[in-house]
């Protein structure tokens, strides 16, 4: 990967151990297996997948909340995995986060001022007046105002709470913000307000985002690149428009096709197509070979035993699918038109 990457993840493994009796390590669960990703300064990478795909595990590992069990994460040239979850102060201040649930991500016993200035208290020597001035500045950045300083989180709506969380994440002007499903708990009209806010702030401050979400349509609006995860593996990665309009991996296409469209007629056509080719019920987890082989309509004998490596896609990015071995065509050109219409 390039030298100018702000965050570079190589062959990352994240493994959880189940607790057995007396704290002994029990069963292992591989949440992330051999993930490779890179984000340049000021760039947004959307990381998409269904529940259990490992996308949040990558987020938590980058944030130093969960240790990596293998591979490397380099941030601004510094190797993070060796530090386990104990990042030094200067790195902590440069990687911030906004979490999904605005109802539990803000401490109910703290005021807005305390929440927003907490990073300043931890990382700077600012005095109370300076911190307050900065807090007012931050609230203005997220379209809140000075009058909100003394209030507690329960006095705000979901969208407003997410603005407070964003203000706090911006306090130290970090280089990277991990956004873990930042709008999925919000109503549609509020969702877009928050997306617009994140977009504005990114362009004004040159912050890179690692955006974790399940909704490809939403991620596509704000991301420069998109990576798609399935069962702990990154199966496709590439420029946002390319991945959304011309998915190269069968799973990415299935994911896009599964999102209902605002067109009843198109939905009827899709349903008729699905009826014509009913999907077989098979176990989702694959022990060997391609992780998606059990659900893949294009599965070949080779997919049963061999793990597909990342093949380059002609129009940018990579996809881990043997269909691309030597070929350059995308899985189905049809999906693109359908999505745009």
């Amino acid at each position, binding site marked *: 990967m390039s030298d100018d990457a702000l965050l570079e993840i190589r062959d990352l493994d994240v493994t959880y151990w189940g607790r057995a009796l007396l*704290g002994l390590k029990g069963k292992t669960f591989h949440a992330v297996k051999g993930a490779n990703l890179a984000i340049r300064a000021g760039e947004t990478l959307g990381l998409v997948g*269904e529940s259990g795909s490992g996308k949040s595990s990558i987020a938590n590992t980058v*944030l*130093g*909340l969960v240790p990596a069990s293998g591979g490397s994460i380099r941030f601004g040239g510094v190797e993070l995995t060796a530090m386990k979850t104990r*990042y030094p102060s200067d790195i*902590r201040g440069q*990687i*911030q*986060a906004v*979490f999904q*649930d605005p109802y*539990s*991500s*803000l*401490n*109910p*016993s*703290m005021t807005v001022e305390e929440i927003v200035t907490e*990073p300043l208290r*931890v*990382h700077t020597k600012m005095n109370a007046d300076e911190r307050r001035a900065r807090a007012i500045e931050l609230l203005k950045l997220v*379209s*809140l105002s000075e009058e909100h300083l003394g*209030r*507690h989180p*329960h*006095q*705000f*709506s*979901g*969208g*407003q709470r997410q*603005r407070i*969380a964003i203000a*706090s994440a911006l306090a130290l002007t970090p280089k990277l913000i*991990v956004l873990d499903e930042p709008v999925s708990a919000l*109503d*549609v*009209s*509020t*969702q877009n*307000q928050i*997306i*617009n806010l994140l*977009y*504005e702030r990114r362009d004004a401050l040159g912050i890179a985002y690692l955006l974790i979400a*399940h*909704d490809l*349509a939403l991620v596509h*609006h704000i991301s420069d690149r998109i990576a798609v995860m399935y069962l702990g593996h990154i199966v496709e990665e590439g420029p946002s428009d390319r991945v959304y309009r011309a998915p190269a991996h069968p799973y990415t296409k299935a*994911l896009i096709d*599964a999102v*209902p469209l*605002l*067109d*009843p007629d198109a939905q009827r056509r899709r*349903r008729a197509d699905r009826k014509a080719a009913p*999907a077989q019920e098979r176990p989702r987890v694959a022990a060997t070979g391609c992780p998606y082989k059990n659900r893949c309509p294009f599965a070949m004998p080779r997919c049963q035993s061999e793990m597909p490596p990342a093949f380059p896609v002609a129009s940018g990015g990579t996809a881990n699918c043997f269909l691309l071995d030597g070929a350059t065509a995308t899985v189905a050109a049809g999906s693109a038109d359908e999505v745009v*219409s």
Partner: protein
Amino acid sequence: MTPPSTDSASAPSRRRRWVGGSSAIVAVAAGVLVLLALLALLADVVTPYDPLKQNLIKALQWPSASHWLGTDDLGRDVFSRLIYGCRIAVIAAAEATTIAVLLGVPIGLFIGYRGGWWDWVVMRVVEAIVSIPGIMVAIVILALLGTGLHKAMIALGILFSTSFLRLARGVVLAEREEVYVRSARVVGASDSRILLRHIFPNIAPPLIVQVTLTVGAVLLAEAGLSFIGLGVQPPDASWGTMLSTAAAFMDLHWFLAIPPGIAIIVTVLSVNLIGDVIRDSIGRGIAVGVRPGTPAARFESAAPPAEAAGPVGVAIDNPVLRVEGLQVMVAARDGGEIPVITDLSLGIAKGETLGLVGESGSGKTLTGLAILGLMGTGVRTTHGSIALNGRELRSLSSSQMEDVRGNEVAMVFQDPTTSLNPAFTVGSQIAEVLRTKKGMNRKEAWERVVELIHRVGIPRPEERARAYPHELSGGMAQRIAIARALSCNPSLLIADEPTTALDVTVQQEILDLFRDLQDEFGMAILFVTHDLAVAADVCDRISVMYAGEMVEMAGVDQLFAMPRHPYTRGLLTAMPHASDRNPPLPTIRGSVPRPGSWATGCRFSNRCDFRTAACDRRIPLMGRERLVRCVRADELVLEAAQ
């Protein structure tokens, strides 16, 4: 981007909420505690006699003008001794409680946060202590320390520290999993900072309750220990030693037990009461719902349901469900009621799916619950009719309603993992419905269960019927919930966000299942969702709700081809895959108003780009083929979504 509306209540009004009917009792309790503190401080000044001065001639006297509460066996003034007893009580309570808090809370915080071996060892010790009767533990500690008030209080402090330890540990264990603690770690706060600054303040409410309970318990325990001679030593006056004396002279002079007894009872009661009050007033509000004193929308409760002439809603022949002029009110903090659904009329035909869409706070979920008669306390239907297959549901008794639910109407909820009981196999939960509602025997019911589970597309149904909910994936659990809902072949199925908690690929399968099952069973479906695209997939007609009322209703093709209400249009353009451009994405400015703060005219008017003066008056639903609640619907040219 517009500044968000101020939708918060002010803190002071919330804090004063508890002072209602019981304010007199609270005042008395507070007065008792103030008096106790004053007497303890000023005991030397206010007592008429030296509490230790004996006068054997005047022993065991009844209350009189010179001795208000009489005298004890040694002729000491009971009133003076009682007042000195206050001092002992205050010292005892303060000492033991302080020791208990200072010992228990830090250890509890530490082991809760650290976990592992520390936690294991300390908790086993604590369990050993609490498994022995408290007074025994105190006696053992006193045996080691010797007798006397302060030693007794150290013993009690150690004893009561276990409850503070467990409380602190419990709070830490719960709070450390909270997202805000994760946020604090991302910010870079150290462990001690997270513990003290982030987690500790959240212990305050339960801690205060525990402190007051402990103060009460210490007062009782001090009395007990002094009573058996291990606490305050004679001749010093404490309520416990006074009781001890009284016990010895019970036959001769029973009155001696009354003053210290009443003092203990009143003090303990007052402390506990004040503790409750403090806890309630600092308790964190969970979304301060409605601002009291906004009578603006209240007029509607008196207004007749809908001024619309003729039937509201698209006329449907033989509807399965017909709702007319429904109004639902919720109890407000100030004792009044606030409307949450007004003037709602809709009908669903056999085999039809009506979508109820809107954002949170629109009243769509409540509509489903109102039809089922399953609203929580404080919520009631005040106007309108709900007819199911021609039968008025509002006139049914609660046992008749119980019969209707499950048999004629069934419901599927958002989260299948919580709507199924984790303690029973999924098959037995469906069988239970069949046996109670259909009177089937065990074998018949089980056969039908397997058939139903097979029907909702689950392979190996016999095996899956014996699985527990947690053994199934979310999609599979939702299929089971659907099978249970359909078990009695209901004529109406209410589905409340049934796919919202599921992944998109699973959502698609469940939506297909709804369609297939409807083709087969022919039930009417009321499909509640916030996702217009899901509604586009599964519904035949869609009704858009906003702030407790219907703003638009149309066939699914018409609605998406040409939305007529500005709100519908706003929602459609805000959908993520509706627009194809980079941010700024289209938004609807502001946010959904809370019940109680609705505008009297068009409730959407303050967010609408097409507002005119005419929007300030009440606007009826208009139209015949399709309905819209907008005065400018005809003149506005609303292009299609996309």
